């Protein structure tokens, strides 16, 4: 593999890691607050559709982005009502949201656009345009550094940089603000937060809504950044890979970044090399595709270090009287 191919693979790793990273951070907020969310997939899908549809109709990627965030937050609200207000099973609620999104997106897409459950292809204004960082052209001729800067670091859309900026921001919010302290506490021991006079319900709803907003950005990036428009089931398990990355990262923001980049790299490799030959043995593409999932199982089994979820995760909080 020559240097340029390597750069291209890394470049597409970054692109593919971005929706994972955003969804992973979304899950981080929710699960740190004690609400398990296996509905990341569905929220991303709904957002991807809304973003694709509204960007196509309005011709503006920003309208699409806002619509995507809105669609995802509505589903988040539903998850919150089911699992916080009515103390329902969070896993069942997540399954329902995934199915709801899978069905509704195709249903509405067919009704609006009559293109077999997809949105029209987006033109330039409907898509996220790449941003060329300063001096990208100037540095190009410098060996190693030049191509790295112009290929890998420059030339992504705004969302990519925002996603990466969200990693330190999330770290700061979680570990350096009062809100973050309470958020972590409510996922470990909601009774203590309640005793301190802070509303458990409000905190959890806030966390769930932040989760929705981030999933919305992730979905919008899928439909308007990574591809030009929405297609049926376009998330293709990314929500679950993000969930896997979250466990891999042990619910911590910086580790989430590395986990998502790793999974992004795996996806990029699977896309670029349909089958890889290592030492005379051909690795089939199906194995490459399944690798993130297999890796997750291995991690979950604790072979790469133990992952301990927030203690109150998955349990509705009942105030004692």
């Amino acid at each position: 593999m020559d240097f340029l191919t390597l750069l291209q693979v890394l470049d597409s790793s970054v692109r593919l890691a971005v929706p994972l990273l955003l969804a992973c951070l979304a899950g981080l907020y929710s699960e740190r607050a004690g609400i398990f969310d296996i509905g990341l997939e569905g929220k991303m899908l709904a957002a991807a559709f809304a973003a694709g549809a509204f960007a196509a109709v309005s011709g503006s990627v920003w309208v699409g982005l806002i619509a995507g965030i809105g669609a995802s937050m509505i589903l988040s609200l539903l998850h919150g009502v089911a699992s916080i207000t009515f103390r329902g099973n969070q896993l069942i609620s997540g399954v329902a949201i995934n199915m709801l999104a899978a069905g509704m997106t195709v249903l509405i897409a067919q009704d609006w656009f009559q293109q077999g459950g997809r949105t029209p292809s987006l033109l330039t204004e409907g898509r996220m345009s790449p941003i060329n960082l300063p001096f990208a052209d100037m540095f190009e001729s410098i060996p190693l550094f030049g191509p790295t800067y112009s290929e890998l670091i420059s030339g992504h859309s705004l969302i990519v940089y925002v996603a990466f900026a969200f990693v330190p921001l999330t770290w700061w919010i979680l570990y350096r603000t009062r809100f973050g302290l309470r958020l972590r506490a409510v996922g470990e021991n909601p009774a203590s937060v309640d005793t301190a006079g802070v509303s458990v319900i409000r905190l959890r709803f806030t966390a769930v809504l932040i989760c929705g907003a981030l999933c919305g950005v992730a979905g919008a990036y899928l439909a308007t950044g990574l591809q030009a428009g929405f297609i049926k089931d376009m998330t293709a398990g990314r929500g679950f890979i993000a969930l896997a990355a979250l466990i891999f990262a042990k619910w911590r923001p910086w580790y989430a970044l590395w986990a998502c980049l790793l999974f992004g790299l795996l996806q990029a490799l699977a896309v670029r090399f349909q089958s890889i030959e290592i030492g005379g043995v051909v690795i089939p593409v199906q194995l490459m595709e399944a690798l993130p999932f297999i890796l997750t199982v291995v991690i979950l089994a604790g072979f790469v270090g133990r992952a301990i979820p927030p203690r109150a995760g998955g349990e509705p909080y009942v105030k004692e009287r």
Partner: protein
Amino acid sequence: MGKMPLWADAILVPLISLLLAAFFSAIVILGIGENPVEAFNLMVDGALKRSAGWGYTLYYTTNYIFTGLAVAVAFHARLFNIGGEGQAMIGGVGVALVCLYIPWPHWTLAIIGASTAAALFGAAWAFIPAYLQAKRGSHIVITTIMFNYIAFSVLGYLLVEVLRPTGQMDPASASFPEATHLPNFHEMFAPEGSRMFRGAPANVTFFLSLLACVFVWVLIWKTRLGYDIRSFGFSETAAKYAGTSPVRITVIAMLISGALAGMMSVNTTLGESERLILNSTEGAGFVGIAVALMGRNHPIGILMAALLFGFLAQGGAELALWTDIPRELIVVIQALVILFTGALDNMVRMPLERLFLSFSRKENA
């Protein structure tokens, strides 16, 4: 909290949840510019009014009975098996291997062999998540989801690289030999020359699924193992003090669950397509969750819920055929049913409980 009578818990709550789901489904249908009443009529027409429609409805019902029972058995041990989809796919591999490589003289033997293989393969696929949950504490929900994706890749690999006959383009195995073909309802029930059930895929596996219902009922309520499973699900610590091994119960419950999910493929692979194809499960593993929730994890409830979902599946296919409404409408309805009967269960239950409480107070006064 007040107690509700059993009939209210078993029938009234699911019924109200179902009506809510139906109401929102009607709104969705209105939203895409169609008439819900007409759509419903069309579904009833296509799924229930003709014998071929029944043949399809019962075919889907068979699938949902298996996956519903699978989810329910795990549920009794408080394990949430989302892996029915993957377990059914791998079960299908078992069916295909047995049918392709063993020369069965008659379908009666083939169905026994295929069922055994499907159950074994499905159970094996459920074993790893079960073992990891029991021994290493990894969350069974996440691992079973991951195993769905891994199963899909495994199936894809097997169909493209191993089982596909040379010269064939689409990823599917060779057709099973004639002797293994299961009799369908047309061959079983239609009198000579009649068109009853013609062209419909319902087959003898339906009766196998009824047997599975009886098996699960006996297992859960009439055996010591079933008692252990239920007590484990009720309180893990109490079961531990009573001398039940959590590892053993988790693994056994998941093995039975996986076996039941795997056996669904007898219906789809041996009964319908008569070869192994890529997408024979069609989301039945997920529908099983809704079926188990609605059926309150009881075989009779599951049978009724499976019939309802079978009707929805066939009615939805019929809708997609005659109108512009895509098949995905059914996924939406299924999601709404899961939402209202599962996640928003308390929304219906809490006011009802209050209502019954106020009634019983009046009686006492």
